[in-house]
């Protein structure tokens, strides 16, 4: 698992790569907390290269989404593979975390 962070204007964009499972979900969450600066309000997580996630990893997404919501911001995800998308659907995440097909779509929708 790897987390890469970059900025596009005021938007924080992270790419998650590899597997997020019970062996590394805590690390994953910590990497995200570390990437989020005090002034960040919008985090777009690009999941194109996320190959696996289990409920331990979903927990991290929820924590980050709640953290951002707590300061009036939000977490948005994009570029989910079919199976990751299925897991998000089953978990009801698609109803509470805005999900987009591509990064540009996410930026266009939430970046303004």
């Amino acid at each position, binding site marked *: 698992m790897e987390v890469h962070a970059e900025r596009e204007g005021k938007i924080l964009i992270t790419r998650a790569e590899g*597997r997020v*499972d*019970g*062996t590394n979900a805590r690390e994953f969450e910590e990497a995200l907390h570390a990437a989020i600066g005090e002034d960040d309000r919008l985090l777009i997580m690009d999941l194109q290269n996320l*190959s*696996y996630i*289990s*409920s*331990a990893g*979903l*927990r991290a997404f*929820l*924590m980050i*989404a*709640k953290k951002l*919501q707590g300061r009036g911001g939000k977490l948005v995800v994009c570029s989910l593979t*079919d*199976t990751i998308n299925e*897991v998000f659907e*089953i*978990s*009801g995440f698609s*109803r*509470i*975390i805005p999900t987009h097909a591509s990064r540009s779509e996410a930026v266009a929708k939430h970046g303004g």
Partner: protein
Amino acid sequence: MSRKLSLEIDPRVEELSAITAAVEQFGDAEKWPPDMVFQINLVIEELGLNIMTHGKSEDLEKIEITLTAEGESLTIEIVDNGHPFDPTREAPEPDLDVGLRERAIGGLGIHIVRNLVDNLRYRRQGGRNHVTLVKERVR
């Protein structure tokens, strides 16, 4: 040819990686699509981690995971001697209709398992939990 793979692991999170590798190889041999490998690993991780975290008891020694491929269906049996626990009845359904603020942390594992397999059965036998999952091949 029918094929059966049994893995016996210590109830330690670190064993998950070895399971993942074993399931991937089994899936390769059975020519599963990658989605199916993901889903099978997922259900095994969810139930396996639950045994390690919630089912832990003095008695818990080993977790046995058996994959049996026959024709178009895959049967997974997970056996442990931790606390008696029936995932078909005892885990409450998570409330997915609330907003982000009210949304509970956790409680998704068994819900995911139920949604990914075609059949889920439980029996307690000889002081051990036997959870049996059946999954038809994904195309």
